[in-house]
């Protein structure tokens, strides 16, 4: 079977495994919805004419959902697979690392699409989220999802070489994600953060992804409230592509089937 065919075969199997692990389904898919429900219910304040915090928050959660299902999930689950010998076994077969990455990309994409649909559904039903009506915005939404999830996947694979063991992985990875969420305009309005925090967040892709999502889901009039006083769409694309390249190179270089 070709490397790509094997990747799809692997992806199908991983989706099956994912769905059978009830904790992972509940945690990865339902958790963001629960967060949305809590934050959306508590912070009902208006942050700009016609924009409530819960709308702002949904846009941020869609972006950070990509980070949860991709980066966080992979950076934790790959070291665990390494611990139990899954990767060692695969390494002894004609499975190529590329096929393995494709398989991971597929399971991550499936989980993301499902999660995004849940968030948009609940956001629109309960928290006044306006789904975009223009095809141009849906197109932007699509490339943001594609680029964001690709970025998140390769960075997750690259980062999976950092934790020494599966058991320690969650302790290393989860705080990074939570801190990034605080810095990147998910839990707080980004432009309200101190300048130095904004500067740190601007290095990482999540800040740009949340900004992109806001450009899709918030009215155009809000653009002026952004840190750069515009949506900066070109810059978002550029920075995500740079991270995608960094993540791809890093994952190719650092990926280890077996911890020596």
């Amino acid at each position: 079977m070709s490397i790509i065919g094997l990747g799809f075969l692997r992806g199908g199997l991983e989706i099956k495994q994912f769905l059978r692990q009830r904790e992972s389904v509940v945690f990865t898919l339902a958790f963001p919805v629960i967060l949305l429900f809590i934050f959306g219910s508590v912070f009902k304040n208006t942050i700009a004419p016609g924009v409530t915090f819960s709308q702002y928050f949904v846009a941020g959660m869609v972006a950070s959902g990509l980070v949860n299902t991709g980066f966080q999930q992979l950076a934790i689950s790959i070291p665990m697979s390494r611990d139990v010998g899954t990767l060692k076994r695969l390494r002894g077969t004609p499975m190529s690392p590329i096929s393995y990455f494709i398989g991971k990309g597929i399971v991550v994409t499936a989980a993301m699409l499902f999660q995004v649909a849940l968030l948009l559904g609940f956001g629109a039903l309960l928290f006044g989220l306006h789904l975009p009506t223009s095809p141009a915005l849906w197109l932007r939404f699509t490339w943001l999802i594609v680029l964001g999830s690709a970025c998140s996947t390769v960075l997750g694979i690259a980062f999976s070489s950092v934790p020494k063991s599966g058991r320690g992985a969650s302790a290393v990875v989860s705080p990074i994600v939570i801190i990034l969420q605080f810095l990147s305009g998910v839990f707080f309005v980004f432009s309200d953060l101190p300048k130095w925090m904004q500067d740190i967040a601007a290095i990482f892709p999540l800040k740009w992804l949340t900004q992109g999502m806001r450009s899709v889901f918030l009215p155009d009039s809000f653009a002026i409230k952004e840190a750069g006083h515009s949506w900066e769409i070109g810059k978002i694309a550029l920075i995500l592509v740079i991270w995608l390249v960094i993540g791809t190179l890093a994952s190719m270089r650092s990926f280890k089937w077996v911890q020596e």
Partner: protein
Amino acid sequence: MTSSSAAISVRGLRKSYDGVEVVAGIDLEVARGEIFTILGPNGAGKSTTVEILEGYRKADSGELLVLGENPARPASGERVWRNRIGIVLQSVSDAGDLTVAETVHHFARYYTKAKDPDHVIELVGLTEKAHAKIETLSGGQRRRLDVALGIIGSPEILFLDEPTTGFDPEARRAFWELIRTLRDEGTTILLTTHYLDEAQALADRVAVMLKGRIIEIATPDLLGGRGDALARISWSEGGTTQHSESSNPTAFVTQLSTRLGGEIPDLTVTRPSLEDIYLRMIGEA
């Protein structure tokens, strides 16, 4: 020179970790279709040697060919070479959410010459468990699944690292039968084991490894001079147990019988078992 017609050919293999030499210069040749066993105490370097042959670790130095290719960098390509080998690892505990059948069918598709998955499940005796989730299997059943995944691709060479750990006696016999069948089909088998009866039952040749070196390679019957070893005779006479060693035990017993007037009380005649020989070898060195 390493020979490319042999299944495995190794010259001067060395590997150190943190300055400690784990494999200290090994020469080894395994013919195609042979069952070759490596025996040795824990820490002798067996697993490291096998993992180098499997391509999991890189040797520090030495010449090394497995199916005519360097495992660290197969000239025909990693996937092509891996398509020809099968590996049964120690202690894998993955994929608990999948069933036996799903797993074996899935892995079958990795290979160009895969065996029929259902037939392989039957060969390892898991047909009744085919639709059970892997997490519900016992240790021995799990091991049999590992074996199934090792042989699914019709490998030309099969690496078995302590494959029967956790098997009950009946399952071990069935497993030995399976290994002999594979050998009869032409599969080369490299087996590491702690069980001397397993080596005795299966191996065409045995290598004994100690402190990173191979101290002897022989057939199980001849290892450690076993073929020439004296027979040990014991019997009761005058209320005490008597012992003697002889290279002609039949003549000795005949004489003894004549002397004692027929039946010899508590007579036993034994030769040292493979285990006796092995323990002596690793104790001496």
